[in-house]
């Protein structure tokens, strides 16, 4: 005589788990005087409704009992603690927002005409276009901004003297970021 299964609680739990994950509507196991019948009832033809909650669809796992929810919370807290201690990837630098730079200053701001990397000199190693105190004429190149090899020249919108510089070489600037403050000579 073939033994289909040993009739322990563990094995019966396995059978129930197998049934729940399956597509079957009924399982019947008979072994001499022992019998187990598992039957899936559908409520009023909305079989789809019931089955949806039995599948792991789109991330949603099987419904949890309240006990296992408490256990899950424990595990999640442990995982969160573990993550805290791992090094996180920091952005290269925090973004300098234009609003933190502009104050009530007299003069003309020279603003970034596009977002990208700011270069204060024509080529690496060469002297910068301008420094604080330098006189500029309208149309003079004062800086470069580059994004993916596209280079924009930033030019002085008026004559004057460079009073303040708000960014450093190779910093990322947003569109409209004030880079220089020019005042009348």
């Amino acid at each position, binding site marked *: 005589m073939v033994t289909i299964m040993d009739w322990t609680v563990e094995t019966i739990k396995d059978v129930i788990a197998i049934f729940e994950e399956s597509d079957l509507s009924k399982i019947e196991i008979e072994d001499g005087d022992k019998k187990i019948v598992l039957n899936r009832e559908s409520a009023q033809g909305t079989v789809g409704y019931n089955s949806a909650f039995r599948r792991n669809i789109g991330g949603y796992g099987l419904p949890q009992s309240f006990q296992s929810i408490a256990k899950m919370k424990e595990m999640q807290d442990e995982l969160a603690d573990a993550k805290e201690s791992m090094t996180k990837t920091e*952005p290269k630098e925090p973004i300098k927002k234009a609003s933190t730079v502009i104050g009530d200053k007299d003069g003309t701001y020279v603003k970034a005409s596009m*977002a*990208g990397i700011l270069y204060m000199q024509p080529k690496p190693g060469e002297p910068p276009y301008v420094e604080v105190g330098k006189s500029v004429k309208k149309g003079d190149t004062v800086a470069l901004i580059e994004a993916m*090899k596209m280079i924009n020249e930033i030019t002085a919108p008026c004559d004057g003297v460079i009073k303040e510089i708000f960014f450093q070489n190779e910093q990322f600037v947003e569109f409209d970021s004030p880079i220089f403050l020019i005042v009348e000579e």
Partner: protein
Amino acid sequence: MFHKILIANRGEIALRIIKAAKQLGIETLIVYSSADKDSLPVQLADASVCIGPPASSKSYLNQESIIQTAIHHGCEAIHPGYGFLSENAEFVEKCENNGLSFIGPKASVIRCMGDKQSARKLMKENGVPIVPGSEDIVKTADEAKEIASNIGFPVLLKASAGGGGRGMRIANSAEEIDEAFNAATSEALSAFGNGDLYIEKYILNPRHIEVQILADEFGNIVHLGERDCSIQRRNQKMIEEAPANCLTGDIRSYLLDAAIKAARAANYTNAGTVEFVVDPNENHYFIEMNTRVQVEHPVTEMITGIDIVRSQILIASGEKLDFAQNDILVRGYSIECRVNAEDVDRGFAPSPGRIEYLRYPSGEGVRIESAIQAGTTISPWYDSMICKVIVHAPSRDEAIRKMIFALQEFKIDGVKTNIEFLLRILNNNDYCEGKVDTSFVSGLL
């Protein structure tokens, strides 16, 4: 899984993507134009970078600035939303060449499906029915006349590089071909930089039925059912619904299978939509494939319980779909209304302005996708859609009633909207009985 992604879009879809990313524990950086500086997505993203002035060409379409921003700020992937760069193969290639993941299909797939004529050819080779038309690009008006006489008038001359209903002309007879050919060619050249045309039989008053596809990078492709988007005005959708109640079981199966076939033929990955037209005699034809997430994706989410934007991010990060076709079950009926800031009485002209008061509808099965709040100024720079109202109910009748109530509950002062017009459609007898096609809205006006 990604740690940080860049969102290259604005408005409601930008906010949608931010929320899906945050749910997955991913940091978000949004790029924006100066016109959107005070917008809700910019406020709510973890980080934001202003990349240009209001004009799209200098901001949301500024490929170099966007990529440089992503690289400089440690973003691993870019989600393009819809519109803007979402179907720009050149941009996808730039991402690929710079080690950035593009959350969408591959450049080669976008390129292939973006060329309408080559997409038609691919479909035909793979047994997907296409609208009868030219085998290839039509080089001269005379060639057009010959093909048209074979397939029968009326015909549509369409830009191969086109989309959005532009670069298209109808010809009802051989006499109209010369004019139509020249007009379509020059519009196509100026709008898309490519004057190539192909011809299709013009299907009168069809229904617009589309199928949502999700495909991972392991060859698994599923459909999430169809949508009916026949309520359109000048090729702009106004109301979308899922499932399509007009379809008989046979045609539905046919379209769903055809969509999978189309996606497989295209080696598709990520989210996409296969569009069909179904004519009054129930003939059905492939029109094109949209290689992006679409505006109307929420109605599919409501009936299937699958988060499409979340799936997009997971797929792009290398995850397998965690469900098979048989696991996807459809529950109930969903309708979406696009609320636009427009003046219906002035030919639906955009109606920008400042929102003085806002009260959203809410409740069981009512979903809002919106980036506006009281105090938001709707600028004239971008399209006029400001908000989507979505409902989900056990049946189409209940969904319609639910939407009507939701739109009545919706209160917005300061800008004109199309809400009254949407209510006219929802209360219309033919609409309620499902007897509508793409000519319905113009019939109402």
